[in-house]
């Protein structure tokens, strides 16, 4: 039997109760809005990127415990990373949740993000955990499109 606390680990419950970096950024380099039509969750991710380094990452919006905690932990883990490393982290996190983690074994260290490893046993909740990451990915890709067309 699956244990509920595989999903709702203490760190997740804590980030749900007290989300970190939950605020709008006044002068982001890029931002994107993510929407999960299944549960109505909405999240906006704001990023400040300077010299290819994510110097600031925040989010705002409302969602379930998994998506709120994931957004909170996402901002903590990409902040201070190079854009390259942040993208690699996204790929590895995504791989862990969708069960394709084998080939990403030698990617960056997931660190605290490992608390989401139990989510893949709750298929209905995988999208909640990946929403903020997809949104961050959309934000930095959008910035690149803008940059490349300048």
């Amino acid at each position, binding site marked *: *039997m*699956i244990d*509920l606390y595989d*999903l*709702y680990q203490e760190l997740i*419950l804590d980030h*749900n109760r007290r989300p970190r970096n939950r605020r709008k950024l006044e002068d982001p380099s890029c931002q994107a809005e993510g929407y999960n039509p*299944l*549960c*109505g*969750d*909405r999240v906006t991710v704001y990023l400040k990127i300077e010299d290819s380094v994510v110097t600031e990452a925040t989010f705002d919006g*409302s*969602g*379930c*415990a*998994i998506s*709120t905690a994931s957004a909170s932990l996402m901002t903590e883990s990409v902040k201070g990373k190079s854009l390259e490393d942040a993208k690699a982290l996204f790929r590895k996190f995504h791989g862990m949740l969708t069960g394709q983690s084998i080939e990403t074994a030698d990617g960056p260290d997931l660190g605290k993000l490992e608390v989401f490893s139990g989510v893949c046993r*709750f298929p*209905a*909740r995988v999208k*909640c955990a990946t929403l903020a990451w997809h949104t961050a990915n959309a934000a930095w890709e959008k910035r690149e499109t803008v940059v490349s067309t300048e």
Partner: protein
Amino acid sequence: MITASDSRHAPPMAQADAALDVESIRRDFPILRQTINGHALVYLDNAATSQKPQVVIDAISRYYAEDNANIHRGVHALSVRATDAYEKVRITVQRFIGAAEPEEIVFVRSATEGINLIAQTYGRSEIGKGDEILITTMEHHSNIVPWQMLCRQTGAVLRVAPINDDGELILDQYEKLLCDRTKIVAVTHISNALGTINPLSEIIDLAHRHGARVLVDGAQAAPHLCIDVQALDCDFYVFSSHKVYGPTGVGVLYAKRELLEEMPPYQGGGEMIQSVTFDETTYNDVPHKFEAGTPNIAGVIGLGAALDYVNGIGLDRIAAYEHELLDHATHALAAIPQVRLIGTARHKAAVLAFVVEGIHPHDVGTVVDQEGIAIRTGHHCAQPVIDRFGLTATARASFAFYNTREEIDALAAAMRRVLEVFA
């Protein structure tokens, strides 16, 4: 395999005053015998789709094992048998909703397709620029989007009658929105998101006084209420087989005969024609004009078995029993201080929607699922009404006559577990 003898699966006899024998009814639904996550399954997502009694499952497999043939187009024995079985269900449905004639019953794919059919046939031919279509805040997406599409195609305008904080239609506001440009009123019989039963007689009467036609979305009503389309005097009525204990893939469209006669066909193909040359086609009579192509024969036969089963128990007794369940559930959940009920209309059926302070419905759904309890969470395909309550999602328990008070107590106990996890 079709070894089940008819007597074993015969529906319980209807006795108006006798209480339902729920234990015996539950034995008719094989799916209910399983455990989920180590707990007996508690299925409280009946508004999404209902479970199927063995008689329905048997009717479908018996059809494929013994009678399968295409209908209306063969002289051989199987085709005659299949056609008979299919057409008999038209009469069962006619009686089930109190229609004047079986020809007023059109088999479609779903309630959704029924609404789209009306929008694209009646709507396209009768509605023009500046005309108005009136719906309500509590409609399911399938009674919103087809009208938006029609408005885009014709230049008509969509109007929305508001509801109050209990989730009841505000009748005088509705009346004010009616005018001589109103061509169609499309309204749900029972709201899937709130459980509200709408006062259809008043709604229809007012609409007719302004010369508007009325489509009733009966998707949630068919399993819970006695329907009498003639007494209601609605022009169109739709429902889905799968919500009334029948199979998926079949829906019913009722329309008054004179409207069906006038309406252009929906799709072209076999079955809906009388004669075809490359220059001209004569359409078949109603209702066949609207049933192009080979229909879902097995599904229609399954629906017939489902309606026979429901009739065997009796909708009056079903409604009375489900009302008790709803009362019990309302009290059980209202007793939890952190729970807020969404949809507190005076007249309600079988649906209990709620939110829990500080806990997202999705998390509620996951925790109770661990206890084997199936509820729905999200916007229930009725986003505008969820918005109306300032929410993005709710949790919803919805009941059928095979549910028990003990199952509702299990939900209440699981809710306390939800509060524990997120304390």
